[in-house]
């Protein structure tokens, strides 16, 4: 645990950073002590990543000073920051997929032979021992692109070890990890801590913060709200600081009015899923819980036709939905919010409005001719209804924060008036305030009679909003619980238990 008496490893004083039109950081003071895990929390766009990028030398502050180990530090590039033994594990992992694990671990500073050439033998053997230290059994020659996200994350941490980093910064490291992997990561963090490494830990998962952090700093709108020892605060308190008001109910669940069955999935198989059967009724929120890699992402894709369906039948309100055709699925009244916002959701160079209306262009057109008035009106309507923070409808969606981007995607599908909405991890990487917003939207839609299939790897939200919970493991539904029977323990047990256990009839 942190020894509060020792001199700080890192000090920021009055750090300010502006982007055109945005004050990302408005004069922030921050301190990191040796051996401490210092959590950083705040809403999307609060400025957490910006601060990290300043510490790493990617951005230069407009004002303010930074000191590392008591010495003033002015970083002109990441190389300067690395030279001061600072290592950042970014939100979006930064590895070269085609290069080997060993090369990635030592990227930017290879071991060299006396003649200055790359020393491949040393590279591999040193990587191997670093990986062993982290309990990771992989061949240093494996291309990183072949590793699981969790393994990639550990490769990043191996990099920190290789650089003998004194300060390690992790930006939302657990957003793609399974509980087991999270435990593993935390063990590594503790190891680092014991060596006196200072760790800045950014996360939207507040429960994690209470597990590992010593102190927590809260950001709001580029301002530092407070820094406090974790022991002296509570989740409720943190949330209040973050969103600037009391968030009384994260999961606004109104009593479900279950109607007709809408979506019927019978014995469907496809890449990653086997023999899937389930039913979603009007007004019902059906949750599917599974650990990472259990196949929950494939569910939405296969039902929607974005991935091939090799067997089985999908009907919506009695009409058969063709396999492998998103167009047909949309036609019949399905909508799919995919797992990866940036990869297959947002069209980054397009405006907020054009992103929103992308799936319902026909609605605003006669014979392909668009009527912009109506389009603008309806988009503006959604911006206001979903409280999307954007300076204008014309703003490129890439400049929005994650939560707001997610809401734009929600609007895209709501605009179509679908009968059933398939949501895949809609709150990944999203701050608690926005999460509450999204839960509220889901609840509202269900209330209006939509059927919702909600896939998530996070138990609390599944428990919070689903009327019925299915558990998935290795591509199969292995358990089903009513809202009242489900508990965290039962879900985990079902998700992790052996295949031989009783398979509860699903749907």
């Amino acid at each position, binding site marked *: 645990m942190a020894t509060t008496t020792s001199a700080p490893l890192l000090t920021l004083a009055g750090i300010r950073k502006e*982007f*055109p*039109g945005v004050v990302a950081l408005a004069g922030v003071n921050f301190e990191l002590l040796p051996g401490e895990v210092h959590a950083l929390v705040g*809403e999307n766009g609060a400025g957490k990543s910006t601060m990290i990028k300043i510490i790493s030398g990617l951005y230069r502050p407009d004002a303010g000073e930074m000191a590392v180990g008591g010495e003033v530090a002015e970083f002109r590039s990441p190389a300067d920051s690395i030279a001061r033994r600072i290592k950042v594990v970014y939100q979006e992992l930064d590895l070269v997929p085609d290069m080997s694990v060993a090369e990635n671990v030592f990227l930017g500073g290879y071991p060299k032979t006396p003649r200055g050439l790359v020393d491949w033998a040393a590279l591999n053997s040193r990587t191997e021992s670093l990986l062993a230290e982290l309990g990771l059994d992989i061949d240093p020659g494996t291309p990183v692109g072949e590793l699981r996200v969790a393994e990639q994350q550990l490769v990043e941490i191996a990099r920190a070890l290789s650089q003998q980093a004194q300060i390690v910064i992790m930006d939302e490291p657990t957003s793609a990890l399974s509980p087991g992997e999270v435990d593993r990561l935390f063990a590594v963090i503790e190891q680092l801590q014991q060596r006196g490494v200072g760790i800045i830990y950014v996360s939207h998962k507040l429960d994690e913060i209470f597990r590992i952090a010593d102190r927590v700093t809260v950001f*709001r*709108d580029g301002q530092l709200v407070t820094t406090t020892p974790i022991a002296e605060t509570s989740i409720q308190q943190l949330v209040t600081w973050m*969103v*600037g*008001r009391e*968030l*009384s*109910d994260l999961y*606004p669940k109104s009593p479900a009015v279950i109607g007709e069955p809408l979506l019927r999935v019978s014995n469907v198989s496809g890449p990653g899923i086997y023999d899937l059967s389930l039913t979603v009724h009007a007004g019902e929120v059906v949750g599917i819980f599974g650990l990472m890699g259990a196949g929950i992402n494939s569910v939405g894709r296969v039902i*929607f036709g*974005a991935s091939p369906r090799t067997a089985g039948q999908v009907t919506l309100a009695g009409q058969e939905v063709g396999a492998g055709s*998103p*167009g047909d699925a*949309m*036609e019949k009244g399905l909508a*799919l919010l*995919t797992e990866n916002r940036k*990869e*297959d*959701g*947002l*069209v*980054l*160079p*397009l405006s907020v409005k*054009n992103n929103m*209306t*992308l*799936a319902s*262009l*026909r609605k605003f*057109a006669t014979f*392909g*001719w*668009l009527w*912009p008035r109506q389009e*603008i009106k309806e988009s*503006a309507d959604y*911006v*206001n209804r979903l*409280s*999307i*923070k*954007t*300076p*204008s*409808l014309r703003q490129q969606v890439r400049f929005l924060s994650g939560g707001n981007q997610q809401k734009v995607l929600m609007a*895209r599908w709501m605009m179509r008036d679908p009968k059933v909405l398939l949501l895949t991890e809609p709150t990944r990487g999203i701050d608690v*305030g*926005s999460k*509450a*917003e999204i839960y*509220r939207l889901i609840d509202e839609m269900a209330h209006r009679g939509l059927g919702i299939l909600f896939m998530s790897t996070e138990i609390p939200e599944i428990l919070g909003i689903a009327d019925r919970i299915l558990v998935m493991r290795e591509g199969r539904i292995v358990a089903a619980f009513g809202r009242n029977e489900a508990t965290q323990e039962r879900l985990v047990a079902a998700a992790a238990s052996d295949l031989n256990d009783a398979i509860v009839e699903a749907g």
Partner: protein
Amino acid sequence: MSAEISTPARSVGASGQSSLQDFLRRLFGSQEGVLFLIVAVLWLYLMSRSDVFFTQRNIGVMLSQVSMIAITGFGMTMLMIAREVDLSVGSMQAFAGVTAMQALNESHSLIVGLLAALAVGAIVGAINAGATLGLKISSFIVTLAMMQIVRGLAYTSTNAAVQNEHKLASFKKVFNGAFIENPVRIPNPVLTMVIIFIIFGLILSRTTFGRSIYAIGGNPEAAALSGIPVNRIKAICFIITGMLAALSAFMLIARMNSGQNNAGFGFELQVIGSVLLGGASLAGGKGTLVGTLLAAVLLGTVNNGIVLLGYNSNWQTAVVGLMILTAVFLDTMRRRMTGQS
């Protein structure tokens, strides 16, 4: 319950600034603005240096020449917004041209000749589309190969220029040069360019098809998952580009009064250069017809100005290069200052 967000969403749609400010911001905030500025400065300079420059005749001649690059460029813009490219348009100037002239000689019908050109354009466009989308090879490479193949076909189909043997009076009138009489007193090539500009400009900005093109270029996966038929739309863009290139080939043979199998060398670079200069990018998702038009006019003005001022035509190539560098430089600076990079 309804949760409020700490900073309430600003009301959207309404702009707080005065319209002049807004106008200026938009003018300088875009590649089109930068180009407009360069063209304006260049025109003012040329007007001060030459009495002939700003005459109806000269502007007509200059724009007539620009029209072929621009018309092909309009197709290319759509294609490049959709994240594809077509390098075969230069060879198309030769192949569609000689084919059309042969068809004219055979049929003595203007329509048949034009249709022959457009058919060649459509077919080559369709082959480009088929190879790119079907075999999943980058269109840069497919059309680089097609550039050779189509040029080879042009040479193979005739071993010399195809002369005008049909002597159709109407042929001379359609796209020939500047001042053939028509009711609007705008040269036919320019008129054609304007019409195509308007049609495709509207298609790009005002139709679901146009919107889909931008979406596909911006994120093909997202577009597909939003129910947009990605391949079909890309294929249509390839075919449109092929047909517009063929139309300019037809305009070229009308200007030359013969189908030259060696026509259009380097034409693809001029077209793609104009499109890129107009603000599109090989990465897709952006670009406008206005930008392409302005860029084509800029390059046309440079060429015209050099000849008008009697400079050594050796300067033409150099000045085109310097203009491209200047425009890219200014655009880079603009983006840096507005934080768009």
